[in-house]
């Protein structure tokens, strides 16, 4: 059973990625179309994620489709001990496409093997969240006019940050230079640095979020530094304010600079940045709608 699914960003070739971005451009120009008329999408959220679920459900609704599903495993039969396989098989009888978030890693891959309708992975534990990666790429291309030859600073938790790992994996198709800016405890793991070496991605690493890095960046991708990630709380206290972006730090930054963040933000981007035109994280989230419209309609062969 191998319907077209989107489980991992590495499943997509460069051409497939660009096709989604091009389709998303079309949906941004015209987000209300009736191409999903008569189709049912199931959103199965075994783990709550309001932001992602609303984005996917809005994508379906604006294309004229209907949505069924659950937003929390507590209201599904998995609490009665039903296997994932059985839940997927049952829902496959009703829906044309399944959009799922699961707390277990690899859940979406397994689901795609037990059904013949498309699966969209809306996050499987700490593993993959490919629609986030595609909307990040869309936001970069839209604001910079290209994906290649950029200076991209990834800032914050680069050890556990799923979004930055997936972004790196996708950027192997689009040569740019990366700056990994993280406290030592949350540095980019060795396997991703090796991935960069293997794929000719240039990178620099530092534990200092310096003015120099900000001033030469085209994109600053901020992530949250979470207290619970630290084994040494003294270390957390020492670095917690060192990875916060404030508006006055942007004074000498490039005109084309845009600040991205996968959201939710806590305090790593100060509120005073929000009114700076270089702040792009809320538009970035809106781009997720168009990208998800592109993903769904592409998997259903409607475009």
């Amino acid at each position, binding site marked *: 059973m191998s319907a077209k699914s989107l489980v*991992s960003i590495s499943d997509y070739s460069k051409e497939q990625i660009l096709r989604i971005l091009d389709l998303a451009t079309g949906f941004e120009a015209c987000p209300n179309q009736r191409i999903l008329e008569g189709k049912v999408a199931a959103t199965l959220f075994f783990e709550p994620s309001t932001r992602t679920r609303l984005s996917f459900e809005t994508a379906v609704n604006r294309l004229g489709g209907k949505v069924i599903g659950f937003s929390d495993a507590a209201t599904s039969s998995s609490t009665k001990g039903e296997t*994932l*396989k059985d839940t997927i098989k049952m829902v496959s009888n009703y829906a044309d496409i399944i959009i799922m978030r699961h707390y*277990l*890693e690899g859940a979406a891959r*397994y689901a795609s093997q037990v059904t013949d309708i498309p699966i969209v992975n809306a996050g499987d*534990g*700490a593993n993959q969240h490919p629609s986030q990666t595609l909307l990040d790429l869309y936001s970069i291309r839209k604001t910079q006019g290209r994906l290649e030859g950029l200076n991209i600073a990834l800032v914050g938790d680069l050890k556990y940050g799923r979004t930055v790992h997936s972004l790196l994996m996708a950027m192997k198709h689009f040569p740019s230079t990366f700056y990994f800016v993280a406290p030592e405890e949350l540095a980019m793991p060795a396997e991703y640095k090796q991935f960069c070496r293997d794929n000719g991605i240039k990178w620099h690493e530092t534990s200092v979020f310096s003015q120099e890095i900000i001033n030469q960046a085209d994109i600053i991708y901020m992530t949250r530094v979470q207290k619970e990630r630290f084994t040494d709380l003294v270390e957390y206290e020492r670095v917690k304010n060192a990875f916060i972006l404030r508006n006055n730090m942007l004074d000498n930054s490039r005109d084309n600079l845009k600040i991205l963040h996968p959201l939710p933000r806590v305090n790593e981007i100060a509120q005073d940045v929000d009114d700076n035109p270089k702040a792009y994280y809320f538009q970035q989230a809106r781009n997720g709608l168009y990208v998800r419209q592109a993903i769904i309609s592409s998997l259903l062969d409607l475009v």
Partner: protein
Amino acid sequence: MADKSEMQVKALKNGTVIDHIPSDKLFKVVSILKLDKIDSEVTIGNNLTSRLMGRKGIIKIADRYFEEDEINRIALIAPKAKINTIRDYEVVEKKIIELPEEISGLVRCVNPKCITNNEPMEPCYRVVGRSPLTLKCCYCEHTMSQEEIKLL
């Protein structure tokens, strides 16, 4: 009269001899190949002296031959094993074990949050490094080093 210090198990007429199995993995090999569930004659020797590996195990299975992907399932635990195919008392083929590209079952994923550790399903791994051995889970995408590999 045969020299008693050279006591041999009975020579095999037709079948397969698996030699150079690490002694501590011999019974695991028996179970992976399901030799405990077959009717034909099986002779097992273990802790035999080996110049190559100190101590070794050997298994002779009468009237039974193995497909390549079947026998390669023991590559993870007995990478140096040699497979001799016997017909009419003669060794007609000698094979060494080869690690397949993909491994189904056998190994428990090191990641407790992997779907394979939480659903009644068969795990699956891609061999992404051979020396040192590195496996990548086809589901959660975690990579496992040799030390982390635990058999099911």
